């Protein structure tokens, strides 16, 4: 039962990744793209979790932690960049 469900979950997450990528490519403003990037990072965290179940390697959760941390720092960095760019 689990492998079948994991295939469905992979499909749903791939679809979500595709939709977020559409917003990333055509987003009218830079904050829209940053939001799309943040959602992509969140989806990738889900991918890594599902892959950890698929392969049975629990060490992959460390990868998920690092991806979540990097996405947060990237979002903060983009926000600082956007705000500082307006004041000059």
């Amino acid at each position, binding site marked *: 039962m689990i492998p079948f469900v994991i295939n469905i979950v992979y499909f749903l997450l791939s679809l979500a990744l595709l939709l977020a990528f559409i*917003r990333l490519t055509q987003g009218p403003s830079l904050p829209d793209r940053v939001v799309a990037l943040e959602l992509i990072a969140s989806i990738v965290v889900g991918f890594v979790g599902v892959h950890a179940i698929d392969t049975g390697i629990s060490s992959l959760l460390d990868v998920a932690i690092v991806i979540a941390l990097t996405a947060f720092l990237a979002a903060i960095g983009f926000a600082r960049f956007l705000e500082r760019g307006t004041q000059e």
Partner: protein
Amino acid sequence: MTDIIVSILLLAGASFMLLAAVGIVRLPDLPTRMHASTKAGAMGAMFTMAGVAFFFADGVVLARAFAIVVFILITSPIAAHVIGRAGYFIGTPLWSGTIKDELRDNYDSQTHVLRSGYEDGPGSVAPPPEPNPDKNV
């Protein structure tokens, strides 16, 4: 039994993430897109991590999954707040159907100063009208 719980949690997490992605494509402007992506995306990641913790049923994995959930729960609102703030500052247009923008009247986009109307003390705002003394019993 564990398989059923793990399957339900994984499917719920993937569905929430797909919902977030649909929202980020379909919704009209930046704050509504953030509303869809940050909340539903964090919820999806949390469901997925709960499924991982149930599948492995191990103390170390549970601690890691719990750490990821707490981290997402802390950072997702902060990131959304900071991006929304930056997006408002640089003048991202709101949806044409927006009916309330409380910052527009009180916020100066050049100096980044937000006024409340109470700067000169409580007396600077018109007090409520005095009750009429003739009608007191």
